[in-house]
């Protein structure tokens, strides 16, 4: 049985007694018990529950708040409401099929999950250097597009939770622009299973580069609109400046990475420190701030979107220059047949591929058959790969027993780590700031719970 306060004097000062009788809302239980407890407590200290079904908790997150008046004295997060057993399920699927599972962890930036998993598998296979350049360019393109999408969701839903629906609609229109490109290239808006061990699933259609170039100014326009709507708005500043502060020492103690760490002053971005997929050849900055509050993190996320657009423009140039190059590793025993195309019936069967495997090459038929039914075996051992998710450091630990299915795949999701810091961000602050703190952590419960 929990008690909730529905006091209309929500903005009363700390410790101030406004003289009104304490109100209790009782959920279930016996009336006499409730009355007895009310009499016994007779104080302003309340414990209440936020979520798991809640419009502002960014997913199914349960927060147990202990509140004294308006100040949060204790805040604990309860997770696991979206636990899907993805890691265990991956042990019963081939290495390539594992991509379709891990992509649904952090469902807002799905291709980052795929990228880290594929980097881990490729490390085990030893083919990291054999990934063709065009495949790497496509991987970078997709990760940056999903980074923009993820930041737009973070900013948009953050604004929505503060009561500004226009921020959300603007952010999502920008996101839809990136979706048009992603859908054109990968076939799906989200949960794409596009990045596969060895390269990417399919090459781009002919008009992709033009589409990407047309998209960039549209997204930039939405980002400008978001900046205009929010950054100088006094209500926005009042609610976000100085709120949810986490300084550098706390970040390092709690293992918080991503925009939160960069807002505390440390320019730590895995794309720069441990480049993968050719990131060292791209020209981009890593925005950093020293204010360490929610406002600076929103600014950081917006700036990262602009930097991502720069990278996307560079990707478009490279795609144009590398037309016709393979997008899958050359080893036919690993390469998922990536030359499939959409036929006239709208299905994904490429007539020329079928002609090749049925009529021209026995080896190609065998490879296709074995890859699809059995998968490729990966030499025994373990590997760890890490990428820079929009939320922070996403790590993947893969263990192979020499077979065609993983022995163990574990993901270190940045949201899982960052959410631990929720208590530090909210305790001592006001109840209304809890919503801001959750928005600023920007975790995705699918990644947190896996």
């Amino acid at each position, binding site marked *: 049985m929990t008690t909730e306060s529905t006091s209309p004097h929500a903005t009363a000062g700390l410790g101030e007694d406004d003289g009104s009788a304490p109100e209790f809302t009782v959920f279930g239980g016996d009336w006499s018990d409730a009355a007895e407890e009310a009499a016994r407590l007779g104080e302003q200290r309340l414990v209440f529950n936020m979520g798991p079904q809640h419009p502002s908790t960014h997913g199914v997150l349960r927060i147990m708040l202990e509140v004294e008046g308006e100040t949060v004295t204790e805040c604990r997060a309860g*997770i696991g409401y979206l636990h899907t057993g993805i890691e265990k399920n991956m042990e019963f699927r081939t290495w390539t099929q594992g991509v379709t599972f891990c992509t649904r962890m952090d469902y807002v930036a799905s291709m980052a999950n795929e990228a880290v998993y594929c980097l881990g598998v490729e490390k085990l296979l*030893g083919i990291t250097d054999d990934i063709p350049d065009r495949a790497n360019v496509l991987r970078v393109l997709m990760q940056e597009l999903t980074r923009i999408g993820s930041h737009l969701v973070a900013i948009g839903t953050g604004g929505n939770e503060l009561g500004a629906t226009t921020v959300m609609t603007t952010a999502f229109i920008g996101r839809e622009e990136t979706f048009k490109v992603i859908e054109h290239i990968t076939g799906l808006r989200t949960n794409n299973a596009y990045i596969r061990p060895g390269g990417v699933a399919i090459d781009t259609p002919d008009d992709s580069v033009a589409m990407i170039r047309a998209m960039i100014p549209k997204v930039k326009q939405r980002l400008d609109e978001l900046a205009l709507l929010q950054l100088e708005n006094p209500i926005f500043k009042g609610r976000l400046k100085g709120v949810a502060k986490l300084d550098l020492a706390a970040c390092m103690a*709690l*293992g918080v990475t991503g925009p939160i760490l960069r807002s505390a002053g440390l320019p*730590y971005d895995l794309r720069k420190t441990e480049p993968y997929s050719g990131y060292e050849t791209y020209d981009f900055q890593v925005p950093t701030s020293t204010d360490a509050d929610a406002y600076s993190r929103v600014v950081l996320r917006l700036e990262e979107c602009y930097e991502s657009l720069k990278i996307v423009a560079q990707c478009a140039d490279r795609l144009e220059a590398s037309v016709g190059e393979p997008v899958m590793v050359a080893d036919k025993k690993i390469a998922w047949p990536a030359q499939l195309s959409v036929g006239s019936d709208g299905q994904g069967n490429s007539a020329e591929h079928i002609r090749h495997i049925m009529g021209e090459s026995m080896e190609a038929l065998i490879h296709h058959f074995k890859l699809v039914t059995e998968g490729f075996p990966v030499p025994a051992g373990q590997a760890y790969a890490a990428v820079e998710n929009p939320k922070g450091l996403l790590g993947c630990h893969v263990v192979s*027993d*020499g077979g065609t299915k993983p022995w163990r795949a574990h993901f270190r999701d940045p949201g899982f*780590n960052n959410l*631990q810091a929720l208590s530090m961000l909210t305790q001592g602050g006001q109840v209304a700031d809890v919503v801001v703190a959750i928005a600023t952590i920007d975790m995705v419960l699918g990644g947190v719970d896996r």
Partner: protein
Amino acid sequence: MSDVENTQGGELSPVVPEGRTLINVRQGSFGGAGDTSGYGGLTRFVYMPDAAQRPYGSWFDQVVDVLEELLGGDAEAAIEAVVVDRDELTLHIAREHLLDVCRHLRDDQDLRFEMCLGVNGVHYPADAGRELHAVYPMQSVTHNRRLRIEVSAPDEDPHIPSITAIYPMNNWHERETWDFFGIVFDGHPSLARIEMPDDWVGHPQRKDYPLGGIPVEYKGAEIPSPDERRQYR
């Protein structure tokens, strides 16, 4: 260096060299009943890569030297094995010395592994006496490098000291590993289930826990759940 040794049929117990993990014993191609490949009698013992010999290469020697120096007399007992594989350094640490090793890793200026990227539990049922492994990837922001610490515990005594006092970021990770593998982290402030419901029985990601799926119903047929299907391993 072969990591798979082929033997054929019969009752064979694997020879486990010091510090080398036996990942799995693979029977045939389909992992059990219904093997129609003709290789049903083939038994393969799959091992993790061998312990490495000096010099390890790149920065690994330096780190291991500094660590051994700091541990002093305990170094022999603490560092069970050093494995260098796929450009990654793995240190197998005895669980009694885990806290000392972690403290040195975090505090010494040449090591400075500030971040522990969580605990991953791995269950190797074939690795008798060392079934439960806890893997700690350590990230050094200062020196920009990554290390792996691996600690093992037997199924009968699944206790590993908790490093939350040294790396507070490991709090939820250890809870998750307890939840999924049953590894008890001694000294953890509040070791409770985090992902599964609080009254769940069993530790789901262990290899002896079934996937838990239900048969899939089709018109006129039923396909068993993924872990019970006949599948090529």
